[in-house]
């Protein structure tokens, strides 16, 4: 099966460069999701970077707005806007807001979001509208694992299975870390599989850095009827930069100029090729 590790490498590089230039932002989670985003935008999603408003496009809702850098890097790399613009991340007047904002006109942004616990409800509403209209497009929603501590997410989980919204696919970035430390110490989430299953979802657990497994999971989700699917993607926060991997202190920090050079070197050394 075709994989997209080269694209994931480029995305990670752009994430590090844009965050370093910004001087603040969320490095760990952004790097951790690069494989998921490479697979989504190069294989799974029906989309056209030249026609971001195309009516038949699949839609991706980024509920965890703080990992905007992985979305921006992926969109720029895919051709939605010039890669150069990534340098404006988080700066005054930029279309690349700290958390995605539709108002600012960046192509490819489906929802202004960033307050945790809201994205899945919105994605559910989008998918519900498509069901009403008998449209074949699908809606994807990227959630954080710590985000699942928000009660409102479980309202959406309950409602999506109740209404059999099978054109909805959620992805949980299961890196096991949040700002205060390991999720299981801050507020226990396991067993996530059992919990989502008990709420009536089709649950698929995968290694979030195994692109073949990710693609298979998305394909399986597409074939599932009458149930929404959640892909619990086990990821490593900071993936690709060995010295910060699995370190929760890199949740909300950006590399300095000096660190950037070191991190890019580390990224090259751990690079996986297709």
């Amino acid at each position, binding site marked *: 099966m075709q994989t997209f590790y080269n694209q994931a490498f480029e995305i990670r590089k752009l994430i590090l460069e844009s965050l370093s230039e910004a001087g603040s932002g969320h490095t760990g989670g952004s790097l951790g999701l690069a494989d998921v985003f490479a697979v989504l935008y190069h294989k799974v999603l029906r989309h056209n970077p030249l026609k971001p408003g195309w009516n038949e496009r699949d839609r991706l809702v980024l509920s965890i707005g703080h990992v905007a850098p992985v979305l921006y890097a992926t969109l720029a790399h895919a051709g939605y806007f010039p890669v150069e613009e990534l340098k404006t991340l988080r700066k005054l007047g930029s279309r690349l807001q700290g958390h995605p904002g539709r108002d600012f006109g960046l192509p490819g942004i489906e929802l202004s979001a960033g307050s945790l616990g*809201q994205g899945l409800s919105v994605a559910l*509403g989008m998918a519900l509208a498509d069901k009403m209209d008998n449209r074949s497009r699908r809606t994807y929603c990227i959630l954080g694992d710590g985000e699942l501590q928000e009660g409102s997410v479980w309202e*959406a989980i309950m409602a999506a299975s109740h209404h059999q919204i099978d054109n909805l696919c959620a992805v949980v970035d299961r890196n096991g870390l949040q700002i205060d430390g390991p999720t299981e110490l801050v507020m226990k989430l396991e067993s996530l599989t059992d919990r989502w299953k008990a709420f009536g979802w089709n649950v698929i657990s995968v290694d979030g850095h195994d692109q073949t497994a990710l693609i298979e999971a998305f394909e399986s989700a597409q074939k599932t009827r009458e149930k929404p699917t959640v892909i619990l993607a086990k990821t490593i926060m900071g993936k690709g930069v060995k010295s910060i991997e699995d370190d929760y202190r890199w949740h909300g920090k950006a590399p300095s100029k000096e660190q950037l050079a070191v991190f890019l070197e580390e990224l090259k050394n751990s690079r996986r090729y297709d």
Partner: protein
Amino acid sequence: MTKWINKGSKPTRTGFGEGVKAAASKNDMIVGLGADITTSVGMHFFADTFPERFFSLGIAEQNAIGVAAGLALSGKIPVFSTYGVFAAHRAADQIRISLCYNNLHVIIGGAHAGISVGPDGATHQALEDIASLRALPNMTILSPCDATQAFISVQKAVEELKGPVYIRFGREAVADFTAEDQDFKIGKAHRMRKGDDLCIIATGHLVWEALQAAEKLADKGIEATVINMHTLKPIDKDSIIEAAKKFSRIITAEEHQITGGLGSAVAEVLAENHPARLLRIGMKDRFGESGKAEELLAKYQMDAEGLVQQIVRWINS
């Protein structure tokens, strides 16, 4: 002078609900969302007529607002009605980010507004909803005075707005007195009565009470102008400034805390443009309680008699 006649008492929630049904029969894009209290908030008119466009979401207001946002992003015009307390407070963050920041055309019905909710007591009496929502960019807030105006508010919200709108209405049957063919413009207040001595700016159910109060004041030789401020955001600055230029005394009347709602909105306009003496009538920094609607309106001096007493006391002080 216009004499306002009660055509027959009717709850404003019924006006809202019939309005949603009427709008939906003209517009296929309208979708209804329910949070268990469908009949209580007037949505059964729609749900019974268009079951394929109505979705039950259970007692989960935060999710309902998000779902509404998603539907709106797909071109639907969602109507989500629940008690004002739950919309404005439970789902406040969803309204702020998913609706207002994204500037989506969603109609929120804010039911059970005010102390006149009655026996359910403080938990269910929306008395801070305007304060909570008025500061949000892109939000429009409508507060119709009777069932007829509630009906019309829905049509205007569907046809003329592009962003989120909160329509506030009450539980009890109240006087239905405005005309079906009234000239209703969002953001443009109605002058309901003309008098030369003072000006009462009222909203919602208290417009009728203010009109009755004006008649009682007239018996005492005090002639009041009464303005129906049916739109609380954007507030009709011109009408307020015009009143301030003409009257040295202005009174606001609302079934809401006197902070953050109509009283505050009028005070802001006065202070910045044309200061005038202001008496704010409403809830005075306390929660409500159980009782019959009319008992509560009397106790908190928001009925016609209470308005008269507060106004006369103010004039004489």
